[in-house]
C-alpha cells in the first residue's frame, strides 16, 4: 500500500526547448549544396622550362575572347557544337590523319587500349566572363564524361557511375582529362 507511484514529471516544456534548438539549427545551417567541377592545376613552371613540341594534329584549340565569343577549330563556333567536336577530336574513331595520334597503353581490366594523345588547349582573355569560361569547361567535361560512359558500357556493360573505384581508374587512364590551359599573358 505504501507503494504510491511518483507523480509524473511535467515534460511539456522540454518539447518547447527542443523546438527552440531545432529552430536555431534550421536557421544557422544550410543544406550541403556545394556542386561544381573539380580540376587540377599544373605545378608551377621551373624558370628554365621550354614547352614540349606538340604536333598540330594533337591540339584542339578553344579560345574565348573578351566578348565571350568562342573560337574552336580556327573558326567561330557555337557552344552547342563544342561537345561533339571535342568528342570527335579526342575519340578519333576513324583514325583520321588530321585528328590526334594514339598510343597503345596496357591498362588493367581493359587490356591494350589506344589512348589518345590529343590535348584540348583552352585559352581565354582577361575580359572573358567567368560564366562563359565555366560553360566551356562544362561542355568539355561533358564530352569526356560521355566518352567515359560509352567506353564503360562497351567494356563492362555498365554505366560509368555504377563502376567501382578500380574500374573507374582504368577508364580514367584510358580517357584522361586532357585539358591544358594556356599560361595567362601579361
Amino acid at each position: 500500500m505504501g507503494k504510491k507511484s511518483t507523480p509524473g514529471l511535467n515534460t511539456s516544456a522540454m518539447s518547447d526547448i527542443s523546438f527552440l534548438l531545432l529552430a536555431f539549427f534550421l536557421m544557422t545551417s544550410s543544406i550541403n549544396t556545394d556542386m561544381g567541377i573539380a580540376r587540377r592545376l599544373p605545378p608551377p613552371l621551373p624558370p628554365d622550362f621550354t614547352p614540349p613540341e606538340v604536333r598540330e594534329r594533337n591540339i584542339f584549340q578553344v579560345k574565348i575572347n573578351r566578348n565571350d565569343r568562342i573560337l574552336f577549330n580556327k573558326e567561330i563556333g557555337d557552344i552547342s557544337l563544342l561537345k561533339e567536336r571535342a568528342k570527335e577530336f579526342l575519340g578519333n574513331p576513324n583514325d583520321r590523319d588530321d585528328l590526334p595520334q594514339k598510343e597503345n597503353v596496357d591498362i588493367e581490366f581493359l587490356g591494350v587500349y589506344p589512348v589518345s594523345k590529343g590535348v584540348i588547349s583552352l585559352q581565354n582573355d582577361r575580359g572573358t566572363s567567368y560564366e562563359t569560361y565555366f560553360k566551356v569547361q562544362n561542355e568539355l567535361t561533358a564530352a569526356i564524361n560521355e566518352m567515359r560512359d560509352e567506353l564503360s558500357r562497351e567494356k563492362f556493360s555498365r554505366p560509368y557511375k555504377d563502376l567501382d573505384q578500380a574500374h573507374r581508374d582504368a577508364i580514367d587512364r584510358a580517357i584522361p582529362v586532357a585539358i591544358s590551359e594556356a599560361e595567362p599573358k601579361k
Partner: protein
Amino acid sequence: MARFKQKNDKGTPGLNMGSMSDIIFMLLFFFMVITTMRESTLFVKIAPPKGTEVTKLEKKSLVSYINIGVPMESYTAKYGTEPRIQLNDQIADVEDIRQFVELEKSARSEEDSKLLTFAIKADGKVKMGMVSDIKQELRNSSALKIFYNATKDVKK
C-alpha cells in the same frame, strides 16, 4: 450519481507530452546531421554559373572557399562596386591569397593539407582576368586542387 459527479470535477485529463520532445529531438538530430554550419557571412553577391556536369564537393573539412563577386549594397560604400575577393571573413586582394593558403594549410595536419581543395565560388559576371590571377597565385603556392563552384542545371 455522486460518484460520477466527482470524476467530472477533475476536468479533461492532461495530454501526455513526454513523447513529443522525443519526436522534436529526432527532427533536431536529423537536421544537425544533414546540414553544415554557415562558415562566414558573405560580403559579396554570388550568382554561380550553371552547369550540367557538376559533381558534389566531398570532404567539407578539407575545403577552403575563395569567394569572388560584387560587394552587396550595404557594403558598397566600404568596398566599392568592383568585384572583390572574400577570404573567410574579410575582403582581400589577390596578393593575400598566398598568405591565406599558408594559413589554411597550417590549420590542418600535414596529410590533410595535401588534400586541401580550394573552391572558387565566383559570380558568373566576374571577369576571367581576376580568376586567372587567383589561379596563378594558387599554383605558385602549390595549392593545385581547385574546384569551380556552380549550381546544377536541371533542364538539359
